[in-house]
């Protein structure tokens, strides 16, 4: 046998290995992914030509420029994921969903009617989205949220998809989530987070059978929110633009103590106290091997309902409302009925407020750092001493619980969850930079796009009020959504060959992009600094 023949198998092996290596190196990178959330395209303008007070999306020109920007950045190969609440199908000036049971929302036909009105009101935006979707190999994915869960009705979905006029390029994520082709990026709206008052009993089947057929379920949160916002937004159009969700109601309470109905105080209090802390970014603290300080939950329960009021900041605008309700015996919360997890979440958040005040660190809670710090919930004796830095424990617990549900859902859909590197949410309207899923895990990272809206954080509002010597009433009456910076948050993931590197970025009307910094200035900095899209 000649030397050449003897070496042939080796050459073949080398050639195969080399070919595989070349192919591997030529594996096309992933697509450019942009995830935006909470557009809330609503009823548009009224007969007078003025925006309806309930209309949140007034940014047609900005939106068109944004779409051109991401189209250019992705070179015509962009997946744009609208991660829930794209259509505002809950809040309507027309009372056209007439279920007798307040727990029931629209039927399929009624919801289709609402979509048609939104399509008519926002034809320009939908046309721009359609043009984007038709270009190159772009794709548009609509993930249903709590405000447009009706997209899961086939007829509603068909009406919505047709409005884009981009056949084959637009899809509704009927599984209730979007997963990238490589399984690395997972997006869902966020309302199914455990304990969220807007969660549906079943997802992605948010329907309940009524006397006249299937209707969209109305969550307790939605029933409360719609009542309040329908009443207050005509007076205070900025109300819904305050991030995070619900924060605007506190200003309304301060401007007009009678603006909140008596029966709304208790559910709102529980909403604010049990507010998931998962928006908070986590600091670099430990490897997860630490004994966290523990709350003495029995002592908390023994202290009665007053502990709930004390868990708000002393200068919280909602505090006087709650104190008043306590004095008048209108709060009937039995702490014995609250679960340990609910109490821990409340105490963790209270500790976050305390720390935020005591070390002048407003980014933790979006709370002003001026004023007195609240006390902590009582601790067990063995864990007294250090500052409580473990308030994100609730956030970890919450997100991990949701992620376990996601894993189960993916398994039911015969889809793997191990390759997920990024989990993107919206829903809260408050952007959050990427942080690991839990303290013990490096990946996946969790982040929040915020809303594709002009939004303002409480501490930005405080600055404006201080600068202009405005009362809460002045602010709510005089500040309009159009006065806010043209600055819109998205999750931005450039094509990758290894792990995706998600960022929260802000598109601004000056053509520049702001990055969400992990510091005290947060969104305000992102909307004033930053750099070009490249």
């Amino acid at each position, binding site marked *: 046998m000649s030397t050449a023949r003897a070496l042939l198998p080796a050459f073949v092996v080398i050639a195969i290995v080399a070919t595989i290596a070349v192919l591997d190196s030529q594996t096309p990178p992933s697509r450019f992914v942009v995830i935006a959330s909470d557009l809330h395209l609503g009823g548009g303008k009224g007969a007078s030509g003025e925006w309806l007070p309930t209309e949140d999306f007034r940014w047609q020109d900005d939106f068109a420029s944004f779409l051109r920007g991401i189209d250019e950045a992705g070179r015509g190969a962009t997946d744009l994921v609208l991660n829930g609440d794209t259509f505002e199908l809950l809040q309507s000036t027309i009372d056209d969903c007439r279920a007798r049971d307040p727990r029931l929302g629209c039927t399929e036909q009624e919801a289709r009617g609402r979509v048609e009105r939104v399509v008519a009101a926002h034809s320009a935006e939908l046309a721009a989205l359609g043009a984007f979707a038709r270009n190159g190999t772009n794709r548009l994915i609509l993930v249903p949220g709590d405000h447009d869960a009706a997209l899961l009705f086939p007829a509603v979905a068909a009406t919505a998809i047709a409005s884009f006029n981009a056949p084959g390029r637009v899809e509704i994520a009927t599984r209730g989530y979007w997963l990238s082709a490589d399984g690395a990026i997972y997006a869902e709206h966020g309302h199914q987070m455990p304990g969220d008052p807007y969660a549906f009993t079943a997802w992605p089947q948010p329907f309940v059978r009524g006397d006249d057929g299937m209707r969209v379920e109305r969550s307790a949160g939605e029933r409360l929110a719609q009542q309040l916002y329908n009443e207050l937004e005509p007076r205070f159009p900025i109300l819904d633009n305050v991030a995070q969700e619900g924060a605007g109601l506190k200003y309304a309470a301060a401007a007009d103590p009678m603006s909140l109905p008596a029966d709304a105080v208790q559910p709102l209090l529980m909403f604010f106290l049990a507010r998931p802390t998962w928006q908070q970014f986590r*600091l*670099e*603290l*430990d*490897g997860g*091997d*630490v*004994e*966290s*300080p523990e709350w003495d939950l029995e002592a908390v329960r023994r202290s009665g309902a007053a502990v709930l009021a004390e868990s708000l900041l002393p200068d919280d605008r909602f505090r006087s409302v709650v104190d008043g309700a306590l004095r008048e015996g209108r709060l009937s919360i039995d702490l014995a009925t609250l679960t340990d997890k609910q109490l821990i979440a409340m105490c963790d958040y209270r500790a976050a407020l305390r720390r935020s*005040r*005591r*070390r*002048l*660190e407003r980014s933790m809670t979006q709370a002003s*750092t001026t004023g*007195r*710090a609240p006390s902590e919930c009582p601790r067990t004796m*063995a*864990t*007294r*001493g*250090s*500052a*409580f*830095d*473990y308030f994100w424990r609730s956030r970890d617990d919450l997100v991990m619980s949701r992620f376990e549900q996601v894993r189960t859902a993916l398994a039911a859909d015969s889809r793997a969850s191990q390759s997920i590197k990024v989990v993107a949410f919206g829903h809260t309207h408050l952007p959050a930079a990427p942080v690991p899923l839990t303290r013990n895990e490096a990946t996946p990272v969790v982040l929040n796009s915020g809303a594709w809206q002009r939004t303002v954080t409480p501490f930005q509002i405080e600055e404006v009020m201080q600068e202009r010597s405005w009362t809460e009433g002045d602010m709510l009456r005089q500040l309009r959504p159009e006065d806010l910076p043209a600055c819109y948050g998205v999750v931005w993931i450039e094509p990758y060959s290894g792990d995706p590197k998600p960022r929260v970025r802000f598109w601004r009307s000056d053509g520049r992009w702001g990055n969400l910094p992990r*510091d*005290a200035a947060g969104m305000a900095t992102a909307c004033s600094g930053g750099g070009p899209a490249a």
Partner: protein
Amino acid sequence: MSAQRSPGHRITEIIAACLLVASTSSLRAEDWPQWRGNGRLGVWNETGLVDRFPETGLKVIWRVPVNAGYSGPAVAGGRVFVTDARRTSGSRVVERVLVLDERTGKMLWSKEWDANYSGLEMTFALGPRATPTIDDDLVYVLGAMGHLFALNVKDGSVAWQKNFVDDFDATIPSWGATAAPLVDGDRLITIAGGEPDAKVIAFNKRTGAELWRALSSDWEPGYAQPIIVEAGGTRQLMIWHPTAISSLDPSTGRVFWEVPFQVDLGITVPTLVQSGPHLLATTFYNGARMLKLDEQRPAATVLWRGDSFSPHSIISTPIVQGDYIYGMSQGQLQCWEVATGKQVWRTRDLIPGRTTPFATAFFVRNGDRYFINTERGDLVMARLSPEGYKEISRTHLIEPTHPYAREPQGTVHWSHPAYANKHVIVRNDKEILRASLAQD
């Protein structure tokens, strides 16, 4: 009849006295009994030291294993005092003060106590931070969780003790209790962070009886070391905490004056620096404040606030020499004008290759030169002037073992050394060593 001496005789006497003083000065041993040495000034006056470090490194007299900690050693009366901690389980530790013979390194005594670092930023929760303070026959030791001991120097027996958490309802901040107790006359002044209004507590240094307390704990106590300055015709206790620089009467705790200075995350770490009528505070996030101390009464005004190029130090205490400030800022050694805060120069030559903005070094003045310990574990001898940084000599002294935020930046050395009796004494998380700086 009084004895009249001739002018010549008197001059001879003066010259002789001067010679005697000079002679004693050059031979005088100098201890390092507290944070940054005598007066907390970061000044070491000994002479007869090396002009350059030996090519082969400093001669190490002894090395003794220790556990982890950031606290610098203190030296007094032939003894070296240092604190450390060892993890027992989870966040539970045993803290310890150990006392070594300065000459041999032999352990003379030690004292241990239990602590739980639960709630501290665990990446940095290695051990105690505060340098022991020695005063006569007592040494004052503070653990990271607020355990305060007054111990007899001779045998470690407890003269008195306090627990800031149990006794004063203190909340220990995320990076632990850091302020080395300060002796002032009969008082021991501590930053306790207690409630109510017990951020600062003065004790009778011999009995532990509380003498006074001051400042609200609505905000964290911060991490800065208290100092005493002479200004405005009186002695002032300077407390720098996350909302203000406060001047107190050290004998009563009464507040003389406060200059608001809000510091994000409560990170008031570098020690305040006084130079004549100037008092400098610098932070990483919020820059600097240069105060002008009133010459007639206890009062102060802000001379300048500093721009983004002014001192932004996270740990390192800057130094003021003449009309210039030198110190670490944004990870570089920099020089600024005292009068304006204007940057004069900056260099990465002190800690080459280190790009992190947190890069840290400790400065000790010795005559017209400085001993500088870098976070890389190097000891540098250098001259600093408005013209620039002039390195005289450099040697590697100790391995950096402190973790650096779990980022791939390597480990660091963030423990201030002691300079005493012609030696440098330095510790990391594994050992403490004494190396000679004596001229042969």
